[in-house]
């Protein structure tokens, strides 16, 4: 087997094992409860007939391992189960909400990069000057701001005081593109600001490493100005660490999106999940969490594959 194929196979193996482990963990937490699950879901005043029916429906009469296998087997076939309260398939409930969360995460990530890359470059180039210190200080402050507080502050400033943008709600893109955009600006900006602050220090350290490299020194010596030299020669090298960090930060952005959805009353996956928790709709909770974890793991696997594209050394198996 070539080095490349072996690397890909090993990474895919890790992805599968982690996914399997996560599914066991998720199932165990929500299903291995002490006491009667049907009683928990229906409440204490439920009739014995209703309890028996629900137990049969959930397969509670079967042993736990079998129930787990049935759940996982269904998901592999694209069946995440039926939401108990609404009666709809879990996947069908998630689909329209996925778009909201997906847009939010996408724009949040892009915005964070647009903030962090220039700011991180300044912090690296001017690291011994007041500009670098100012960027670091701002990043520290940004990292300390809880994302929902940032959202509330933006609402009270931009939506309530200035009346520039709507304070909450959502319009699908297909219905009204302008309304869709105006409803997403503040939530995406909230996520971008907080995540951007977290990213700045990673961008900074990635570029600081480049500053010590011989190729940068050579570029400077033959007359390149610092910023162009860093962009022309440093960006591809910094991209390695950046892509890693973006992958690792994805789960943080996703959690941020779940919280931000609540600030702006957006009908996304987070709202679906929290409603399901309040209603004790356990299959819906399991399915949504599993889907979110799958998304995070899949993106991180893609990140690892992207090293092979960014860094030719990884393809030949030579150590870096």
């Amino acid at each position, binding site marked *: 087997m070539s080095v490349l194929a072996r690397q890909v196979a090993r990474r895919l193996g*890790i992805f599968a*094992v*982690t*996914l399997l*482990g*996560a599914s066991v*963990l*998720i199932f165990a*937490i*929500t299903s291995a*409860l002490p006491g009667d699950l049907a009683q928990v879901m229906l409440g204490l005043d439920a009739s014995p007939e209703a309890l028996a029916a629900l137990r049969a429906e959930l397969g509670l009469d079967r042993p736990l391992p079998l129930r787990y296998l049935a759940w996982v087997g269904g998901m592999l076939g694209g069946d995440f189960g039926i939401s108990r309260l609404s009666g709809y398939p879990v996947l069908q409930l998630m689909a329209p909400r996925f778009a909201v969360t997906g847009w939010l995460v996408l724009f949040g990530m892009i915005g964070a990069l647009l903030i962090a890359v220039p700011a991180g470059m300044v912090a690296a180039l001017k690291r011994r000057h007041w500009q670098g*210190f100012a960027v670091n200080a701002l990043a*520290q*402050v940004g*990292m*300390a*701001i*809880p*994302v*929902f*507080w940032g959202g*509330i*502050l933006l*609402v*009270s400033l931009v939506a*309530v*005081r200035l009346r520039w943008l709507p*304070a909450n709600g959502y319009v699908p893109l297909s219905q009204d593109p302008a309304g869709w955009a105006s409803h997403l600006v503040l939530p995406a900006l909230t996520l971008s600001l907080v995540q951007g602050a977290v990213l700045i*220090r990673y961008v900074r*350290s990635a570029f*600081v*490493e480049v500053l010590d490299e011989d190729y940068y020194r050579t570029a400077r010596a033959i007359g390149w100005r610092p910023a162009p030299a860093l962009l022309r020669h440093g960006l591809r090298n910094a991209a390695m660490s950046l892509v890693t960090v973006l992958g690792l930060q994805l*789960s*943080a952005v*996703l*959690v941020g999106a*779940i*919280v931000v959805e*609540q*600030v702006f009353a957006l009908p996304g996956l987070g709202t679906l*999940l*929290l409603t*399901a*928790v309040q209603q*004790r709709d*356990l299959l819906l*909770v399991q399915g949504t*969490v599993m889907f*979110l*974890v799958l998304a*995070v*793991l899949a993106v991180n696997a893609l990140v690892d594959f992207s090293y092979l594209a960014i860094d030719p050394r990884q393809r030949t198996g030579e150590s870096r």
Partner: protein
Amino acid sequence: MKRLQLWLGIALVAGVVLTAAVSLVWTPFDPIRVVPGQRLLPPGWPHLLGTDGFGIDIVSRLMVGARLCLLVGVISVSLAAAVGVPLGILAGQAGGWVDEVVMRLSDVVYAIPAVLLAILLAAGFGASTVTAMVAIGVATIPAFARVARAGTLQVMASDFVLAARSSGTSPLATAGRHVLPNVAPLVGVQASVTFALAILAEAALSYLGLGTPPPTPTWGTMLRDAQSYVYTDPLQALWPGLAIALAVLGFNLLGDGLRDHLDPRLREVS
């Protein structure tokens, strides 16, 4: 500059600890009892930051909120370190399949962020301070395991460990005598940074209604309540958010300051 960071961190953390300690014996007003006649008073005297939608003094609530933020931080960070550090040292010392198993397990836990884990626990067991602490603690185990493992690998490659092993010191004794003392500073830095994360996660959970239930005042639930008044009284949302931000800033600065203090070389790269 480095000194400034460390001292600012220490000052902010000390401020939070002191506030929480004072709140145990004294608060300006009752932090829980609803006073219908004094709703939404503006900042002034005797209510320095005014009162909230229940007519309760905001300063008093903020002071009591510091207690819960520290409690959740201490418990969850201790839990994470108590499980993660031994596992990390074990993985680093044993290597081979033990290392592989520990790291894969840590990948599994790492795949589920603290807030999602807390949502799962809340769905199963109902939301409480305990589920929040357990979720944050368990979710941050991998961070400690990785830091401890990386430190252990470094120590294991050193000459003094080679000498100890060749003179017949048992692995357990090596771990206690040589590895742990060298890993401890790294763990300390990690603890401080994780503490900041724990405060943020706890605040987010309280805000979502998945943390400590009312009437216990927490900064997150105060923000949740304050959001209803964003049109009429936006100042309400300022104070609890500021409290969270200052506490998080304190622990982050403390962690960074400690890191620079322990290893000045690290400042240039990280």
